[in-house]
Structures are given as structure tokens and as C-alpha cells.
């Protein structure tokens, strides 16, 4: 099994909440993709930890999520404790996102050596110029008609070009990744068991094909490093030795998918939210130095990674009044926690000046988003460039159409109109 775990309800168990399960089903329903927040509120208000009919515990409260993701009795390996799983080769479940320590810690450190501190401090910071130039070039390419789909023309290509550069993947192969990446994350989009089975099959095939492609790229770099992350992984022995080829492929698949399926939504969600709040957009344009706070508030309100369904309890764990029973799946609804009124006053309000900025948009605990620093810079630069250079930007359609995926949520297209395009300013 190479894909993310099945988040569809299965066999009912005793003790599950039918009301919560019904609300969760409505959450999964594509009809509600444009605004899942009232459903989160309903779930959270009923109880911040609830058991669904199929036995999974859904966590929607801020404090409860922080507790669970820091609890060493909660595994991030959805297959932990199951012995019916063979080795299916490299894939997402073998990447550190779905591993526990010590394997997780070692793999993450070995990857971090080529991405950030302590060994590669300054690398992400050094990409600011490239990101700005890329964003600027994309805006230069906007059609003269003054109408554009921001997802296709901007939010998608920017992070994808950057992740390809970081990893060392040729831009021209991008369409193939796009298809593979979409297939790998597709299983939670299924609406019937038959469809789920078919999507899992397709995801499995895509994982194999992507793995084979990356294995080739890795081999080319072995002995001839090219300054990218993949070259680092295959050549730098570090203090902990080399990763296995299988580990390298799994890690690279994870990073590619992370780069394809999250920041695009962040940029699109951010642009959408700003366009819905013209007064805040005016303030940002008047003082772009406020972008860091604006961005964190955008991420709190509209996090791309809404729910992570990978966790499982290794023992009974008490959270508030609820005991999460040993062996149960645990689903973490970050997006619900980000609007928990017990932590964020007036949580549905977009307020870049709010005191609490400790949102969970990038997760928390040892699995906090690996690529967060890159995503943060890309999104902040992208949104700043966009709204500084385009005048009189308007949404064509609100709400826009959404991608099917309920867990990695974002618009499938975001049509805007704009007036004048100002010339690019100096690259900062």
C-alpha cells in the first residue's frame, strides 16, 4: 500500500457518533468543499474529540490536537501495529512523514542536511531572489486581456518550478509529475468503495512510475553531484551514512508531492481571501512589510492541509473526557483547530493584527511541515508581487470551483480580472 490511508467510513463500530459521522460525510461531499468551516464548527462544538462510526477518532479542538501530536503514544505510521502489510517498495508510506522515530528522525535529518540548518543554513533564504524573479516572470506572462486563471498561470507553476529546482528535476518533465502527483493523492476523493479501490490502484501505479523515474534521476547523480537536493541525498554520507535507494525515492516522492499539492493551494487560498477583504488588501498594498503577519493569518484561516488522517494510537490515550482506544486511527483536523474559539477570539474573522499567531497551518510536533520555510517564502513573495503589480484585481466567481480533494483543499481555478500591470520593481 503506497497511498495515504482511506478516509472513507467503513464498517460501523460501537461507540461511534452517528451525528459526527453524518457531518463528516457532508464534509467529504464535494458540495461543501467551498466552505467546510461550519461543518468543522459543528463537529468541534459537539466534542473536540469524537469517534466516527468507522472507529476513527476525529480531533477538531486546538488544545486537543496539540496534545495528541506531542504524545509519543500516537504513531504517525498508519500501518503501525498491523502485520498484514508487506513491503510494497518505495512510496509515501515509507517516507518520513509516515514513519516514527528513530527512522523518522534519521531520515528527516539526512534530508535536512541539504535543505536547512544546521548544515545548509541560509539555503532557503538564498532562494528569495529566484522566487521573486520567477513570480515576476509569471506575472509578465499574464494575458493582455486582463483575465487570468490564477491557479494555472501563477499559483501552480511557481511552487512547482521551485520544488523542481530544489530537488533537481527537469522542468520539462513537469506534466508527467503533475499527473502522477494528482493520482497519488486522489484516493480520499472517492465517493464509493469501488471508486476508492480504483483510485488506490491508480495511485499505486503512479507511485511505481514516479519512483522509477526518480530512481533514474538519482542514478545519474550518483558520483556526479549537481548541487541539488537529490544529488545531496545520493552522494553525501554525512554522519549517519547514506539513505538507501528506496529511502531516497520515498523521500523525493514525498517532497515532490508536498511541493505540488500544498503551496499552490496556499497561494490560491491566500489570493482569494485577500480579494474577499478589499480593505485588508488595501492596507497590505500600502505597507507590504505587513505581509508576514497577513500571511500567517491567511494560513490560519485557509490552511491547504486541512486534515491529516495518518495517525494511530499505540495505547489507550485519554484526551479530555474521551479515551482514544488502542489501535484506532486518529484524524487531525488542523483547519478546525485554527478556528477553535477557545484559542482564537472571533475565529472566523480575518484579522492580521490578532495577537495569537500560533496556528497549526503547518502542523506541529515532530512531523511539522518539512517544506514550511520554502512554502512560506514562496507564498509571501507570490502574494506580494501579485497585488503590488496588478491594479484593480477582482474575482470573477465567488466561490470559485474547488479541487475534489477534501484533505488538501484549494480552488481548481481562480479566475480574476485586473487592470494595469505595473512594471516589476527591483528584486529584493
Amino acid at each position, binding site marked *: 500500500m503506497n497511498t495515504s490511508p482511506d478516509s472513507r467510513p467503513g464498517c460501523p463500530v460501537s461507540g461511534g457518533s452517528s451525528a459526527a459521522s453524518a457531518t463528516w460525510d457532508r464534509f467529504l461531499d464535494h458540495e461543501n468543499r467551498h466552505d467546510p468551516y461550519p461543518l468543522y464548527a459543528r463537529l468541534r462544538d459537539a466534542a473536540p474529540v469524537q469517534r466516527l462510526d468507522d472507529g476513527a477518532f476525529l480531533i477538531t479542538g486546538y488544545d486537543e490536537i496539540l496534545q495528541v501530536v506531542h504524545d*509519543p503514544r500516537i504513531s504517525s505510521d498508519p500501518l503501525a501495529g498491523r502485520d498484514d502489510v508487506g513491503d510494497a517498495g518505495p512510496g509515501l508510506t515509507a517516507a518520513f512523514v509516515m514513519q516514527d522515530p528513530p527512522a523518522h528522525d534519521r531520515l528527516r535529518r539526512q534530508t535536512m542536511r541539504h535543505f536547512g540548518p544546521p548544515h545548509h543554513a541560509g539555503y532557503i533564504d538564498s532562494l528569495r531572489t529566484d522566487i521573486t524573479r520567477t513570480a515576476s516572470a509569471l506575472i509578465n506572462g499574464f494575458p493582455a486581456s486582463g483575465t487570468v486563471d490564477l491557479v494555472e498561470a501563477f499559483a501552480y507553476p511557481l511552487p512547482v518550478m521551485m520544488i523542481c529546482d530544489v530537488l533537481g528535476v527537469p522542468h520539462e518533465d513537469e506534466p508527467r509529475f503533475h499527473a502522477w502527483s494528482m493520482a497519488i493523492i486522489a484516493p480520499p476523493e472517492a465517493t464509493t468503495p469501488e471508486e476508492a479501490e480504483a483510485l488506490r490502484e491508480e495511485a499505486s501505479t503512479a507511485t511505481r512510475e514516479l519512483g522509477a523515474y526518480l530512481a533514474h534521476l538519482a542514478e545519474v547523480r550518483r558520483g556526479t553531484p549537481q548541487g541539488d537536493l537529490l544529488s545531496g541525498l545520493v552522494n553525501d554520507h554525512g554522519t549517519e551514512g547514506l539513505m538507501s535507494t528506496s529511502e531516497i525515492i520515498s523521500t523525493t516522492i514525498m517532497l515532490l508531492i508536498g511541493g505540488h499539492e500544498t503551496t499552490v493551494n496556499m497561494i490560491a487560498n491566500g489570493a482569494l481571501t485577500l480579494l474577499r477583504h478589499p480593505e485588508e488588501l488595501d492596507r497590505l498594498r500600502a505597507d507590504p512589510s505587513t505581509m*508576514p503577519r497577513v500571511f500567517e493569518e491567511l494560513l490560519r484561516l485557509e490552511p491547504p492541509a486541512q486534515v491529516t488522517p495518518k495517525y494511530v494510537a499505540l495505547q489507550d490515550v485519554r484526551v479530555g473526557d474521551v479515551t482514544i482506544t488502542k489501535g484506532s486511527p486518529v484524524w487531525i483536523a488542523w483547519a478546525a483547530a485554527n478556528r477553535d474559539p477557545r484559542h482564537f477570539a472571533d475565529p472566523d474573522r480575518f484579522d492580521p493584527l490578532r495577537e495569537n499567531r500560533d496556528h497549526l497551518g503547518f502542523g506541529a510536533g515532530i512531523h511539522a511541515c518539512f517544506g514550511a520555510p520554502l512554502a512560506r517564502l514562496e507564498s509571501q513573495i507570490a502574494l506580494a508581487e501579485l497585488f503590488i503589480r496588478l491594479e484593480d484585481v477582482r474575482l470573477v466567481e465567488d466561490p470559485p470551483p474547488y479541487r475534489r480533494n477534501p484533505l488538501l483543499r484549494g480552488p481548481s481555478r481562480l479566475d480574476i480580472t485586473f487592470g494595469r500591470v505595473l512594471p516589476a520593481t527591483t528584486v529584493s
Partner: protein
Amino acid sequence: MRIAVDMTRCQSYAQCAFLAPDVFRFEGEEALVYDPDPSEEFRARIEQSAAACPVQAIRLDGEHRRPAPEASAPTALTATDRVVVVGASLAGLTAVETLRSGGFTGLVTVIGDEPDEPYDRPPLSKQVLLGTAGARGTRLPRASDLDVEWRLGEAATGLDLRARTVLLADGGRVPYDRVLIATGTRARPWPVARDAGLDGVHTLRTADDAERLRARLVARPRRVLVIGGGFTGSEIASACRRLDIPVTLVDRGRAPLARALGDTVADVLADVQREHGVDLRSSTTVTSLRADARGTVTAATFSDGSEVDVDVVVVAIGALRNIEWLSGSGVAVGPLGVDCDASCRALGPDGTVLDDVFVAGDVAAFPHPSGDGRRVSVEHWGNAVSQASVAADNIRTGGQARHDEVPVFWSNQFGHVIKSVGTPEAADSVVIAQGSTARRAFVAVYGTGDRVVGATALDHVKWVEHYRRQIGEGASFPPEGRTVDDPPDAERTVRPRSRITRPDTSAQHSDERTTP
């Protein structure tokens, strides 16, 4: 600009080190080191880092703090009332900020015996000794609109409870409606007065101390002798090794930090020190210091009869409370500091509560949260902040909120971060609950009887929050069952915390308060 990181909150997510690598660095995998006084040119990156920090641990200068929601609640003070804070360090500044953010608009006066504005002390034994920050570069960031009367360089010499007045060394008198005692501690000097005054013999508590010691290190001494293997002593030894200066560390316990953290963790730290080239002399004391004719220290003799030649001696044997100015005032003081109740209100000699006198920080001797009648003082950064916040709120509201936060403290040394919660110094057992001591990344959990009372992480800080919760809930010890991070079987044995002496439970967190 000025910045400070609340390391009790920091979980080493490293977002700051990605975004502002010239200001925030990691030593090893998890130990954050930052420039407390960075150039203005990095402001945008620092603001980006502060906004990005997942635990919101980065404090910046000039940040306007909105009044807290409870600011509109009725207060015990009016706009004409005056609060006097004695002590201009972390606790004093935190109290002032809490008063103002709570909406207090009356007069606030802060009296401090050092001439400096409130500054952060943890960097003194790290960044300042390494030279990555100046001794005057650790001033604490603060809101620009605090509206405080600062009386710095003026020592308080007395407290007149009846006249509600603080007496100053120059004869000045400062009247108050409420007073907060936050006078902290000073370094315990070497007990042989003649030797304590030798040229080359240092302590480290103040910015001046750090400046003097840094100057010695710059002069490349042949060898530094650190007396006392507590947090300060160990960090000084770490700085010396980073500077490639030979260092001998003498500790009377079986290993550095053994009193604070127990034998199991301390033995690991002893190995770490030796691997980094520290000449570690455990179970050893200094019997004498020798000096040349000009009164400059030249050598030290140890209890095992051995001797080393040294150019610099740093005495790191703990702290003394600054309570002398209160003698005869009618405020109860003891060896642990100023007695107070759980709401930070000072007590009179007969144990009655003094309604207008409050205490916070290192100098406060407060009831042990267990309610068993013991008194404790906690000499840690996080305690100064949390206790001063509670005290200030109680001053403002007249309420009796309790200060009962589970203590958290940290130390950066030898490329590792050590983070502890609860009261590991008072436990009787310890077990490695996660990770591996061999890998130098683990969590040790401490128990008293069948309850978890503390935890110490070495480079495993993201898990600490879990144990803090366990301590608060009185979870059962030892932790049982499978975790994601089980230690090797060989390390999973419950051991006595200390194999030599039972800890002195009346002197919590004062491992450094040992006499040689």
C-alpha cells in the same frame, strides 16, 4: 534592534533559522543560538521569523501589546495609584509589561541597583562569552509605550511597611500603593574571601561579570578552571571549548548537573563534556587557589591532591538571594528568599499575608505546589516570567490567582539543548522513556513514588510538552506501554535518581547552591 527568544516555549522548529540565518543559528540539531542585538538591516527578516514561529517565542522591541481581554475587568487600583517594582531584571520588566497590557494606567516606578536597562541573562554565559553578542547587547526587548519611571543605578536599602515606602541608598524615599519585590540573586562568591578577590577569579551573574570574563577569554588563557558543574558552570565550560580554550571543570558531585538532573542524565552529560575536551574532575573539590606576587591566580589544588596551572578561575557555585535590604522590615525572609503565598503575596514574620507587598522571580520562596508545606524557590527564566505575570495581575485586580505553573528550564551546551519540566531534582526514580542516551537524543522521566514529577530531554524538545502535561495530571510512573520512540531495552530500566545522596528537597532547583 533587540530580540529575545523565550526558550521555555521554543521547540526547535527552526523557522527563524531558515528565514533569518544571520540572526538565528542552530548548533547541532536542536540548540538555537541567536544574536540578541542584531543589526537593523535584518528587521524585515526578523519580523518574518517572529510571525512564523509556531510557538510564538520570539520577542521584539517596540511591539505594542494590546490590553488583554480581561483589561476591562474591575481593578483594585486607580489611575492615581503607584506601583513600585524593586528589581529591574526579567521579573521586574515582565511585571511592568503585564500591568500595562492589563490596562493599569497609574504610576509605575522600577528601581534597580545596576545602571543598565533590564537585560537578559541567559546569553551572558553563551553568546557573550563566545563574542557573538556584546555584554551590553542583551537588553530585553520591550514595548515602546510602557510609561515607566526608571530609577536605575539606585539600590533599595529598606522597606517601610507602615509608611508604604521604599528607602534608597542615597536617602531617597519612594512611596507606593503596591510594591513588588523582584531583587533576584547574586553570584555566590568563593568562600575564601582573600582568594575570591584574586586577579583572574571571576563569577558570572551580571553584564559586567560577562564583560570581564569575555575579556579574559579573548586573552587566550592557558587554562580556565570552572568550579561547579551546574548549568552556569557547564555552559561556561562549553563556551571555553568552543573557543578552543583548555578548561578544567571541578564538581563535587558524581557528574555535572547530577543534583539537578540525577545520575542517569548527568552521566551522559559527563561523557558529552569529556568528548568535547573538558578536563572533568567529578567528586572533587578545590582545596586552595594559588597566586603570584602580584595577586594573580596561577594554580588550583584539588581534594585528590592534584594541581593544575590556570590563568582564569570561574566560581559557579550558585546564588545568594538579595534579601538583606529587607532585614527588620517586617517581611519574612529565609535562606530561600522572601516568603510568599501561592498568589505571590509576601508574608509577615507570623505568616500573615501582606496585602500590598508582592514577590516574584528568583527571590521568591513560595509554597511547593504539592501543598506539603515545603517552600521552594526556582531560579529559572520561565519562573521569573510566569510568577511576575501572576503577581502583576494580582496587584492590578486584587485577585488571588495562583502561580502553579509546572516549571520549565533549559540549557544550551556543547551543541545540545537540555530542557526540563517539573521537579527532576526532587524525584526519587528516573527512567529513559524515549530515544536513546547512546544516540544523545532522549527523554528521561522522573518519578516520586508512582507519579511522574519531572522530565528532561536532551535534543528531543518537541516531546517535552507531553511530559509537562503528564506532570500536571499526576500521571503514573513509570510510563508503560509502547510509544513511537521506545528506547533500547538496555536503557529501559527504572533507576534511583541518585545513587549517593537523597536530594535536598528544601532547596529546589538550586544545584548550583553548593559550597565547595
